[in-house]
């Protein structure tokens, strides 16, 4: 059976105003939490592989204790096992330090065939952690993957590139970052939601499915994680006005009204739209 590892992260929900400080930074303690939307595509791809080829799917997340919530969500989607890496010495890890810690989780797991990550996170927003895990594990990667199939030990994939796409073949193991384009999300839960609720209630069952590990458990070197292990720091932040600044939005009861208000505004702003029309 294929062994699939999926990296998922819990991120602050920036669409809700809760936990957003006046200066635009996030107060993670107060912010609502959610599964990184890009990681849903990775999770969906993992479940597809499981349904199509048969696979054991292990989800891994690194974060503070509440991050266990994303593992529960992953079980509902059909994942088999979850690992939460949580440790105070991970705080303020940049991508290099995060990838170091996450690759140590993979080493702790042992054998694997396919590692899936999201394209990027909505808070870190770098798309770097996936390739950096692959580098640490000395394995091949396919980033921006839009579709894949597996035959024996060969994985075929389609990758987005400027101007089109590439089709490629790779021998397992491989790390894939899953693009958000092409396949829309399927909101069905493929896991047995009632059974998930049930095993979460029994500490023994729960422990079989969810492992909570620290840097010591996985044998990671704390000098390579957190602030100490990160070659970069955030020096300064500014709040931006709404970008582009000033979208004039027409919204209301009647479409006729909205459209005619837009036209009036275009005229008033002297956009010269009239000149471009066939009249």
């Amino acid at each position, binding site marked *: 059976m294929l062994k699939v590892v999926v990296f998922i992260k819990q991120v602050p929900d920036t669409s809700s105003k809760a936990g957003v400080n006046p200066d635009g930074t996030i107060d993670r303690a107060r912010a609502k939490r959610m599964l990184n939307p890009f990681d849903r595509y990775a999770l969906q791809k993992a479940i597809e592989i499981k349904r199509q080829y048969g696979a054991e799917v292990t989800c891994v997340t690194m974060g503070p204790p509440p991050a266990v919530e994303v593992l529960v969500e992953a079980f509902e989607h059909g994942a088999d096992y979850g690992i939460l890496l949580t440790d105070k010495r991970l705080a303020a890890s940049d991508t*290099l330090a995060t990838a170091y810690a996450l690759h140590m989780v993979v080493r702790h797991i042992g054998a694997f065939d396919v590692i899936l990550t999201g394209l990027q996170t909505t808070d870190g*927003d770098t798309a770097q952690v996936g390739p950096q895990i692959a*580098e640490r594990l000395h394995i091949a990667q396919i980033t921006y993957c839009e579709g894949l199939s597996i035959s024996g030990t060969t994985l075929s994939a389609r990758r987005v590139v400027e101007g089109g796409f590439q089709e490629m073949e790779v021998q397992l193991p491989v790390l894939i970052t899953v693009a958000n384009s092409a396949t829309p999300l399927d909101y069905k839960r493929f896991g047995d939601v009632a059974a998930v609720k049930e095993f979460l209630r029994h500490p023994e069952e729960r422990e079989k499915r969810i492992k909570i590990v620290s840097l010591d458990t996985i044998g990671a070197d704390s000098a390579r994680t957190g602030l100490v292990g990160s070659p970069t720091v955030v020096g300064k932040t500014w709040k931006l006005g709404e970008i582009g600044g000033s*979208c004039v939005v027409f919204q209301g009861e009647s479409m006729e009204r909205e459209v005619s208000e837009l036209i009036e505004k275009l*005229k008033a702003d002297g956009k010269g739209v009239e000149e471009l029309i066939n009249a």
Partner: protein
Amino acid sequence: MPNPNNVVVVAEQLQGDLQQITQELLGAARGLAEKLGTGVSCFLLGHGITPLAERLIHSGADEVIVVDDPQLKEYTTLTYRRGVIAILEHLKTPPPIVLMGSTTIGRDLAPRIAAYMEVGLTADCTELDIGDYEHKGKADPTKVGTFNNILYAIRPSFGESLKARILGPWKKPQMATTRIGVMQALPLDKTRKGAVFTVAVKFEQEDFRVKVVKTARDVSTSVNLTEAKVIVSGGAGLGGPEGFDVVRDLASVFKDAVVGASRRAVDSGWIPYAHQVGQTGKTVRPDIYIALGISGAIQHRVGMANAKTIIAVNKDADAPIFKFAHYGIVGDLYQVAPLLKKELIKMAREKGVKAGA
């Protein structure tokens, strides 16, 4: 021997075409190099690409370091990784700064190089600068100190609501990728002179683990998106190929309008790829861009954000496109588009009457 103290740009070419991002990076690198009092080196990898070195010099490079090898004909992560590492190791001392593009290649390759070198990498920068920094944080005493002339890598964060300056003065090279279409390319200067060096690379068997079976690049110019004055685009919100009838109908109002599309509409097979606008489609700068049922993902936005007037129609008031469009209508495009068509015609007629009177 190439100068290891230069600011480095890793060039990007696809099948022998230099990508625009490379000129943008060279423009940015020159600015940094002038502040540092050093030059600009460009790494150029591929097969049969040595003649491109001159273009790179005309675009701002002082030195071009070429790896020209049949194994680099197609881009693959591991072979290009080996090539870049070979050049960096050839330089003996690591350069101060290495820049790449936030493209599907740059974002594939840069993180692997950074992890190999164990250095920092800042993604998707929109500004780069040089300055000083005093690190006071006591959490790690080995980091404390004052650092002069380091890279300021500035990038948007948290859904573009914040801008952050990322610093990594402790290790060299300081690495960054920059967003497409943001840095200023320099005008081509055919009188510029520079030096070209070549480096040989020794591949390992493991570098060939990924085989490219096919590369489909559509460079068709059958649809003239880049020169159109007006673009009316449709996205997944159209719900099906027939939706493009509505898009075409609205476009027919304008004198010189072309139909555009989001990648999702193209991938759904509703319209050919030649219509796609965005990072992996065309970059456009029309006077008017009307987006019907397009959410405004960053990869779409980088292709059309320079339109003079952007009008978005979307039924979701929270769609990201309303953050950067100039005008927006929240509503069902199937209701809005016909009304918009009618009103636009009326508007032009009224104007015509006034002009005639």
